[in-house]
């Protein structure tokens, strides 16, 4: 089955070393793919590379069968991708409404009137819907995360990339966030997320990839991974 996103032999990094050392995988339509792994394993770099923020040094990234390796973020967004960065993912000096508007204006907007999209998205996030004039900087961590989701969803993306959506959130909020992710997924959006919180994220995922030191250590369904007794080994043992 051809993937929504296909990554083959991807190598990338920032400085001298490659952080991602030849990673290949497919993202299947409609699934939640969770990439887990210890800190420094390259999860964040990988998802940034998918989003087009860190350019690939080698290998290809395809979106719906089309090679998008050379495309920049805005062009990938126009093709149906959306990306929610980790933390600092809302414009803090702007209100909720403005954050949303910005997204309708600069993302791959399909209809001319952003209002419709905004209304649709806000229905999913009642928490922030009724305080649209609040500065995003004054929101709590969970609400900010919701807003960032909302912004990304406004373009009705087919693939949503999430970089550690649960980072810095209290356990209760973590669950709420993942429930939201699941809800979004159920509306038909394919989701690729990077997570450190294995325990909380796997139950909401369809499939999982374990990334260690920039290479895929393990790939299976989420349930299978959860069930494995040697998860600890899998994570912590060096190559």
């Amino acid at each position, binding site marked *: 089955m051809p993937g929504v996103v296909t990554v083959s032999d991807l190598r990338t990094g920032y400085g001298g070393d490659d952080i991602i050392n030849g990673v290949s995988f497919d993202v299947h339509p409609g699934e939640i793919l969770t990439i887990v792994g210890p800190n420094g394993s390259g999860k964040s770099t990988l998802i940034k590379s998918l989003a087009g*923020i860190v350019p690939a040094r080698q290998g290809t990234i395809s979106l719906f069968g089309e090679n998008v390796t050379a495309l920049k973020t*805005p062009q990938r967004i*126009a093709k149906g991708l959306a990306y929610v960065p980790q933390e*600092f993912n809302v414009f803090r*000096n702007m209100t909720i409404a403005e954050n949303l*508007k910005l*997204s309708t*204006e*600069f993302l791959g907007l399909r209809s001319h009137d952003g209002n419709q999209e905004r209304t649709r998205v806000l229905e999913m996030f009642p928490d922030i819907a009724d305080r649209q004039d609040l500065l995003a900087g004054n929101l709590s961590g969970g609400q900010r995360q919701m807003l960032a989701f909302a912004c990304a969803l406004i373009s009705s993306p087919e693939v949503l990339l999430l970089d550690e959506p649960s980072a810095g959130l209290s356990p209760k909020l973590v669950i709420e966030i993942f429930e939201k992710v699941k809800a979004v997924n159920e509306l038909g959006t394919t989701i690729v997320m990077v997570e450190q919180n294995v325990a909380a994220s796997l139950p909401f995922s369809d499939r999982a990839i374990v990334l260690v030191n920039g290479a895929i250590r393990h790939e299976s369904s989420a349930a299978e991974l959860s069930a494995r007794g040697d998860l600890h080994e899998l994570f912590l043992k060096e190559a």
Partner: protein
Amino acid sequence: MGQLLINGLGTGLIVALPSIALSLSFGILKFPNFAIGAMLTTAAYIAWSLNIHAGLPLLAAGALCIILFPMVALLCDAAVFRPLRSRGPVTLLVASMGLSFVLDNVCRLIFGNDARNFDIALSRPYRVWGLRINYELLVSAGVSIGAMILVFLILKHTSIGRAMRAVADNPNLAAARGIDAKRVIAATWILAGVLIAASGVLIGMDRAIDPQLGWNYIIVCFAAAILGGLGNPAGAVFGALLLGVVGELATLVVATNYRSGVGFLVIALVLLSRPNGLFGTREIVK
């Protein structure tokens, strides 16, 4: 006292426009544009030659200048700042010093050293409750306030304005959201250009136009922008008004010659209590 207040507001309103421009370019382009003075001079000369040589009435000349000058600003950006964009604020600051030499002297080369004046008749003031309010003050207040409202409407309610604020707020996220930095930079220069042009015309009306014109405003504009918190256009307006009013009121206590010193004293006091300016969240370059 009331008269001083009016005078101070008059000065402040004129200075407010270039201060907003400075603040905008600092917030979005991330460098303090020292050439703001020379740009004022250039804009004033453009309006002047439209007024005198092309024979347009001042209103038309000013309006045309407001359309033309942003192009000059874009040209300056393309020639000077674009190649240096990645090189840190101080390099850009020094480049803007170089630009200001070039602009000032291009004006001198073309227009000569003589002071020039617009072709307008001056008028005596209206008197309201014993206070003197003159026509130009009303015009410049009107234009300044109008321009400010326009700027804030643009920033607040247009997509490009929001994009500008987004870039100022969090450039990385803006890039991740697909906001085109080039367009935002161009928009910033255009907006700054409009403000500078408007203010150049007002300053030309207020005093005479000569090649040194802009130098007189650099320190004041920087002071106002810093006072308001660099990168915060609304703060810059407040900073300009505060400096204008304090400068005038200070003459009640100290000799007029020390007026500009008083401005710095105010800044020092403000920074002591609010290290990032009155409304600022941003830090200035070292």
